[in-house]
């Protein structure tokens, strides 16, 4: 079993605030790993460190055997890590297919090839009907889906999903879960931040629990849900099931 992503003793400080502290865990190739933790636990910060949004204060991130710690965001994407944003960063003046196209152009020079790939990705994500809608006209769940589509268009080996299901209805969530499974079935490893415990537990092979910037526990969904510290710190700690 080889690891697609290895995080070693990663720490991120913002001035005096320690957003991530001494975080270590690994993602096995082909796995879906859930990341949970209360608001402000440092989940998004961790994604930003992996995707090269900013560099960690300490520690290393290894992707496919290469140290990517000091690399820039666009290089990391080119190497095969795709990501979505908690607050969707859609290109509102462009149509849905153009949003996905700029992702598809990451690994393709030829326009026709890229446009063909866009159609595939839109079909995968169930967005074909919205193809020529301006992204600014989409509602939040649709924008979150577009985030996934755009990231998928870059042909990632590892996909980082930041709360793609917050604010979705139960049926939409089901669709989203099946989308994640479909993506995973194409061979993409996934690291997903999710507040909804049912979703995380059903979709993840393993779960990382972050509390106050530290890893509290890494384990299978069963191990995590039955762990007393998790129940105390997170599940019982007043955090609601749907996040904010």
């Amino acid at each position: 079993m080889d690891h697609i992503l290895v995080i070693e003793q990663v720490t991120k400080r913002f001035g005096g605030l320690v957003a991530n502290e001494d975080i270590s865990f690994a993602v096995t190739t082909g796995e879906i790993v859930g990341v949970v933790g209360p608001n402000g636990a440092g989940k998004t910060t961790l994604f930003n460190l992996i995707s090269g949004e900013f560099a960690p204060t300490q520690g290393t991130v290894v992707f496919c055997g290469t140290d990517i710690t000091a690399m820039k965001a666009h290089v990391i994407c080119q190497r095969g890590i795709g990501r979505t944003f908690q607050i969707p960063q859609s290109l509102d003046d462009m149509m849905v297919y153009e949003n996905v196209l700029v992702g598809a152009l990451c690994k393709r020079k030829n326009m026709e090839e890229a446009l063909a790939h866009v159609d595939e990705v839109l079909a995968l994500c169930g967005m074909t009907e919205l193809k020529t809608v301006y992204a600014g006209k989409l509602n939040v769940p649709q924008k979150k889906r577009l985030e996934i589509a755009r990231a998928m268009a870059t042909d990632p080996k590892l996909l980082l999903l930041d709360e793609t299901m917050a604010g979705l209805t139960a049926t939409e969530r089901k669709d989203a879960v099946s989308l994640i499974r479909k993506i995973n079935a194409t061979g993409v490893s996934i690291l997903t931040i999710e507040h909804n415990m049912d979703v995380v537990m059903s979709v993840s092979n393993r779960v990382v629990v972050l509390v106050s910037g530290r890893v509290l526990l890494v384990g299978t969904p069963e191990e995590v849900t039955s762990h007393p510290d998790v129940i105390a710190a997170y599940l019982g700690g007043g955090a609601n099931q749907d996040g904010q």
Partner: protein
Amino acid sequence: MQKNFLKTNRGWFLGLAVGVAAAVLFPQVVRVRFVWNLLTLILVWAIVGMGWNVIGGYCGQVSNGHSLFYGLGAYTVGLAAYKFKLSPWVSIWIGVLISMTVAFFVGKPLLRLKGHVFAISTMALSECARIIFINWKWGGGATGVYIFTKNANEWAFMQFKNPLNYYYLFLVFALAVLLLIKYLDKSKFFYYLRTIKGNETAAESVGIDTAAYKLRAYMLSAAIVSIGGSLYAQFILYIDPSMLMTLNVSMMIVLTAVMGGVGTVMGPILGAIALTTISEYTRVYLGRFGGLDMVLYGVLVIIIVLYCPGGIVSLLGRRLKFGARRGKA
């Protein structure tokens, strides 16, 4: 890809053919020297506006200092003829190289700056350049240089007795730039520029080297504006810093694109037609009332920018989908 470019844009090329035919015939019908002059200037501003549009319109990095490249283009052609008897057919391209080199070195640090800071820095940059040129004795200093070459062959030195020759020659240049922009409009390069304009974080996240693409856009922009400057110098056969490198010129460059429609293929051309016409007529009819022409000119510009922020293209686009990129390929 080449074939497709023609095929998918058949309507556009048809419209272009009509436009070019009109542009060719118009000065033959209206045989007024002032109008010929105006038409020639429109072409210069169309080229310059299309050039600015690459960095300012498509990439969203508003440069207020593009008179620098306009001036560099003009000066290269002017000094090459005056000092070295070099034909503009050669020196235009030297000017392009110089402008791109300067753009490369100043763009690297400046393009890191965001929004207004970038806008102001570019303004400062072109002001510095103007002051340097004013004090540059060898280059003619503040008085400038007449670049008329005696006994030169008209075509070899681009110095025509018949003013319409300038017009038709510039029309070819403008057409070439327009076709280049039209080709790039749906290319990876310009899609990347639009992405950078829309959201830099998103751009980086899909693997776009934002710094590198901004720099490329800035260099291409500088190159095109430089050609415009070279042609202008050739048209009036005179160069001096206070005519070429002022804030006025920079603003006029920005306005041409803004008025026509930022980030669109046809915008700068429509902007050039509107703006040059307004400014030439106000200059001629109101110029003697000490600055009144500038006031009226300013008011007209404000009205257009206020009531049609998408530029003239957006007005037409609503009805005709004319050149506006919302018209989908």
